[in-house]
């Protein structure tokens, strides 16, 4: 019997590239850990503001600091101070509370829009690669039409048709993102489609839907996950841009893009109104990009993220050792004449 009961050594199979395995490898990458930390802090902020907003009607933040919606004309464009660490805006609302509340819309837009693109892109990409032919042509050409129009313009058109609302913003950005995901998924699925386990599934007589979503998609999803984290930042910026242009989140909901846009008019007298939301956008996008970079490194089989023992390995020392070893040994050099046993190329070989 073959080594029955002897579990195969795990180290041999580290090239499997599972999503979970990859995520645990992230601990070796300080950049992505920093990114994760930023995202974790933002998620906490967003969760807090969501719970506070819908359950307690902004009671907690009012008690802690200030109500983000409370206007006070006497405090118009107040400088950053101990009372208002980030100053106040045109209506005297506290900027710090508004910045905290803004994380909710920013993250929701990021997650929902990226989620829509992710699911749509995975389905379109996998289906088009698996079925090929006209299906592939039709789906990919349609996706390329979407690609040809700048994302922001497409989103604006969508918002103009369906009206500016936060839900339409999700959908618009979700659709705009689909092409990138579809292409990544398609290229992955194209290579997986011809793997032997897919052929085995075909020969097993499984329906094509099962083959597609059980054999192909789970094995090709990893790069799409990287794509998702990397584009999260872009989507948040895009949503901020839409809000800046007045199409996205509608007042009085605090939103970083909207706050930037409002602060623009008072840039000279009150720099803080525009700068703090800008910094938040910057930090968020950086957090997602750092995580995405780390993920990409971890998934690249040619990169080593773990600490290696080679760091203190000296090539000169090694060469010296090798030289010593070869001069000591009495091995004859490997020349054709030593191959009397007939191994290696023979002179009589026909060319």
């Amino acid at each position, binding site marked *: 019997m073959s080594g029955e009961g002897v579990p195969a050594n795990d180290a041999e199979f580290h090239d499997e590239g599972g999503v979970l395995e990859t995520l645990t490898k992230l601990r070796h990458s300080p950049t992505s850990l920093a990114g994760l930390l930023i995202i974790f802090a933002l998620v906490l902020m967003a969760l807090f503001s969501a719970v506070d907003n819908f359950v307690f009607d902004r009671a907690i933040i009012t008690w802690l600091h200030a109500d983000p919606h409370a206007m006070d004309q006497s405090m118009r464009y107040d400088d950053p101070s101990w009372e208002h660490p980030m100053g106040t805006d045109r209506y005297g609302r506290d900027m710090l509370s508004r910045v905290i509340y803004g994380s909710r819309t920013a993250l929701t837009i990021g997650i929902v829009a990226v989620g829509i693109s992710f699911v749509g892109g995975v389905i379109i990409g996998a289906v088009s690669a698996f079925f090929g032919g006209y299906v592939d042509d039709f789906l990919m050409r349609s996706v390329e039409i979407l690609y040809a129009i700048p994302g922001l313009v497409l989103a604006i058109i969508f918002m103009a048709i369906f009206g500016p609302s936060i839900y339409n913003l999700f959908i618009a950005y979700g659709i705009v993102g689909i092409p990138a995901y579809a292409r990544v998924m398609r290229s992955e699925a194209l290579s997986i489609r011809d793997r032997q386990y897919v052929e085995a599934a*075909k020969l097993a007589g499984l329906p094509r839907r099962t083959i597609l979503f059980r054999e192909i998609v789970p094995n090709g999803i990893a790069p799409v996950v990287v794509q998702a984290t990397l584009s999260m930042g872009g989507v948040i910026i895009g949503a901020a841009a839409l809000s800046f242009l007045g199409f996205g989140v509608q007042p009085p909901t605090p939103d970083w893009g909207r706050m930037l846009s409002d602060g623009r008019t008072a840039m000279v007298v009150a720099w803080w109104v525009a700068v703090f939301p800008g910094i938040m956008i910057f930090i968020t996008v950086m957090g997602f990009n750092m995580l995405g970079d780390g993920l990409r490194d971890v998934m690249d089989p040619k990169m080593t993220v773990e600490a290696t023992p080679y760091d203190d390995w000296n090539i000169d020392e090694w060469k010296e050792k090798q030289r010593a070893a070869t001069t000591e040994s009495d091995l004859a050099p490997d020349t054709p004449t030593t191959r009397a046993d007939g191994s290696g190329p023979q002179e009589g070989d026909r060319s």
Partner: protein
Amino acid sequence: MGVEVIMSAGSQQTGDTADAAGQPLLEVSGLKKHFPVNSGLFASITFDRDADGFPITRDDSSVKAVDGVDFALEAGKTLGVVGESGCGKSTLARTILGLEEPTAGEIRFDGRPKDEIPEAEFRKRSQMVFQDPQSSLNGRRRVGHIIEDPLEGAGWEKARRRERALELLEQVGLKREYYNRYPHEFSGGQRQRINLARALSISPDLIVCDEPVSGLDVSIQAQILNLMTDLQAEYGLTYLVISHDLSVVRYIADRVAVMYLGEFVEVAPTDRLFTHQYHPYARALLSAVPNPDPDMPGVSSQLSGAVPSASNPPRGCRFHTRCPSFIIPDGFTAEAYDGYDRLRSDVSERSLDPEVNDVSSALETYVPELASVAGDRRAALESAVSEALDGEWDRAERTLESEQSPCQAEAPSLETAGDPAHEAACHLSFETPSDADSGSTEDGRR
């Protein structure tokens, strides 16, 4: 260019007299699978500035991976297919199972044409064991579920599937507890057992094994092969085993087919093929098996070079470009025939050597050994060169063609050789003693 060959229908009558009772489970006749070099409308259009007329032509050349294969496989028997890499073995297997659509030819399964058998039924009766134990199992699924796949395809309910998978795990020498493990927890040999269990789960009649053990080390190979033969004896399975490893085929197969460039060149019962080979390729292939006898000289390869391109196979016998027993026509020496061949290829390309300006210099350039060429052959060469110099390329080509070797002129078909069950496709006389030291025939050509 290749002469279109329809292999003799006689090759289907491979019936072993000893086993006349068994009706062939699988019959393949004239099977062809060609892959277009350029797929799609736009990829196949080539721009050719030198072409006369419209400069855009359509490139419809194709790789002839399998080009006219006939065989019959009786139930409960094993046919081994051997050949070099790239000779179309795997394509043959995939085409038979329907992973590729055949370009031409017919596949009959259990007496019925495969096209008439419903897909679901064919899937229940045929399975495949893949070469690579790593990539033939989906690393994200539990092996129990992988084994159940064919049962799921056949619509079994979950509890029954599970029961059968557990039973199979034991049958292939694994433990029931392994049901919930993932493929990466197993060694290569264990994974190949899982592969076998998957193929067996639906109790098929035919199992096609594409290099079933080439990814395993030798001791594991023996275990898997023994398991395969045990299962065959138990369930009366029919195997089609594709392999490049002759010892594997010798161990497991009842009949062996030697494949070269999309065609079967020799088919014989295993015992017979390993003692008598008629086709020079089969002979060369078998002589390349390392001999464990230390007194024997090491392996000397009789063949060199690579398999010619399957998109433009050599004319006549496909093996003639590498054949150590190439038939030189009477009146030529080997060197002179090489010169003749160079001349012929230049004539067919419509451009002689630029230094050539008259008949004698041309003959001097191409065939320096002209003195050794018999009189009538020499006259033919002379007239061909003068026709070529006059610009009558077609006539020159025809003149040269009449002098060619039978190996280039005509593709041999499979014919009975020595024994009714033994067939070979070669122009050499089959009286040639099979154990002749073909290495001494120094007329091998490039």
